[in-house]
């Protein structure tokens, strides 16, 4: 609407990879001095905002911004059949859509590797923390259970989608209603959520560990390591990706940093 994007943004849209590569030495030298491009400390997250209830037709929803990253998470719930091997528990399905709107790099089509990995890591945190009591979502054993769909819609990729998606998912679940009335199954009630898992992602760059990588930092990172921490400080999920290795000491340090960062995020944004 008449607004001209800043030149750097315009160039960014040509190729994130190329721009990141051009900035590699600059960012590397900053890290050696203990600094980051946007002035953050190594263990500091970008600004977070969460707005819940933004998608009125969904049973729960949350719009999360993490720096430039914007993600809308919607929860839909419907009755259905359980999986044959787990007849007495509800079903949790997590999906991520990296829609072409979110980045010039994304293309339309079924979820590919990157989207599947994000969805599976977020799913791991929520499932393994037992944040949702899936056993309570069984209505008739082997026949009828509640199926919870978490759909993660990335609107703008400004880096570190996993953490934003994790925060968005749990924020949306905390705001979700079980739609029993619609299906003639009793009264609506809030979805019981027992824990608040939070994913925190670190990258290794220039020998340092940086939390909440920006888009460029993420592009340059050889190692991306996500740790999902629960309210009691225990860990419910981890995922290392990227082509560079991690030392045992680095893995231990990330776990420590992630626990502290997750506790802060939980306290500030997610505790009811």
């Amino acid at each position, binding site marked *: 609407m008449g607004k001209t994007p800043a030149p750097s943004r315009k160039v960014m849209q040509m190729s994130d990879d190329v721009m990141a590569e051009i900035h590699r030495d600059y960012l590397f030298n900053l890290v050696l001095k203990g600094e980051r491009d946007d002035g953050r400390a190594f263990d500091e997250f970008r600004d977070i905002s969460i707005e819940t209830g933004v998608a009125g037709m969904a049973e729960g929803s949350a719009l999360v911004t993490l720096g430039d990253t914007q993600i809308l998470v919607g929860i839909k719930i419907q009755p259905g059949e359980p999986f044959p091997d787990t007849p007495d528990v509800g079903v949790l399905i997590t999906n991520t859509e990296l829609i072409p709107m979110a980045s010039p790099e994304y293309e339309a089509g079924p979820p590919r590797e990157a989207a599947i990995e994000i969805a599976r890591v977020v799913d791991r945190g929520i499932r393994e923390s037992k944040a949702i009591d899936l056993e309570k979502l069984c209505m008739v054993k082997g026949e009828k259970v509640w199926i919870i769909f978490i759909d993660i819609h990335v609107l703008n990729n400004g880096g570190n989608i996993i953490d934003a998606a994790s925060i968005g998912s749990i924020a949306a679940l905390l705001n979700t209603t079980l739609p029993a009335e619609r299906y003639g199954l009793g009264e609506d009630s809030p979805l019981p959520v027992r824990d608040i898992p939070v994913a925190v992602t670190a990258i290794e760059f220039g020998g340092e560990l940086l939390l909440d990588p920006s888009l460029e930092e993420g592009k340059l990172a050889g190692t991306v390591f996500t740790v999902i921490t629960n309210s009691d400080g225990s860990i419910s999920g981890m995922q290392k*990706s990227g082509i560079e290795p991690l030392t045992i000491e680095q893995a231990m340090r990330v776990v420590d940093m992630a626990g502290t960062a997750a506790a802060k995020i939980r306290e500030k944004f997610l505790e009811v």
Partner: protein
Amino acid sequence: MSEKPEHFIVDGKRLDGRSVNELRPVKIELSPLDRADGSCYLEWGRNKIMAAVYGPRELHPRHRQNMTKAVVQYRYNMAAFSVDERIRPGHSRRSIEISKVGRDAFEYVIFTKFFPKTAIDIFIEVLQADAGTRTAGINAASLALADAGIPMRGLVSACAVGKVDGEIVLDLMKEEDNFGEADVPIAMTAGGKITHLQMDGNLTKEEFYEALKLAKIGCDKVYKLQRQALIEKYSKECAGNGEDASPEPEGDADE
């Protein structure tokens, strides 16, 4: 699915008689496949895994070629009959994720810069699954790469650690994987650099640190088995040519 056992560890012994830091029996056969450039058949407990490597070979379509290095491709696949309930053949979300992190586990050790514009293809077929197939797959892939003569910094060795009955144990078997409290698959170089790490379940920070230490012990054991298998095979090749077959002293090639 079987029922959850009441106890996983009785008098220091696990359900299959192993101690907490013991691997399942491992059997390795190198070059079982004729067409592939390198291959390995691995039995790990009741897991049966076939790994094959092709390459470096020209990568198609051309636009996927990298002008500065080889592209590593990793395909983890489970045979439809490898588990109790038949699984639909082809990719699943699980196999896509395992393939991705499997590829990541090898990018560091393979000297990809030596082979620009090519592909190095790693194929893993799980023929019989009994918990720990991704780590067994990585171990087999590592040997298939060596068998194919792909230049590497060193082997990658993998094992899972987990928690059952509140104790950290090495190499989860099926029951421990299904009903245990945590599962942490890890791959390392001989020098202890982590190239693969996932975790699900519930662990405290301290338990995770303990798990990492046990994983290092486990990966060291696996490395010895892998190394032994390579020496045995290529000693025979050397002996056939009347050459000296004495192996080099052990060392961390990747440091």
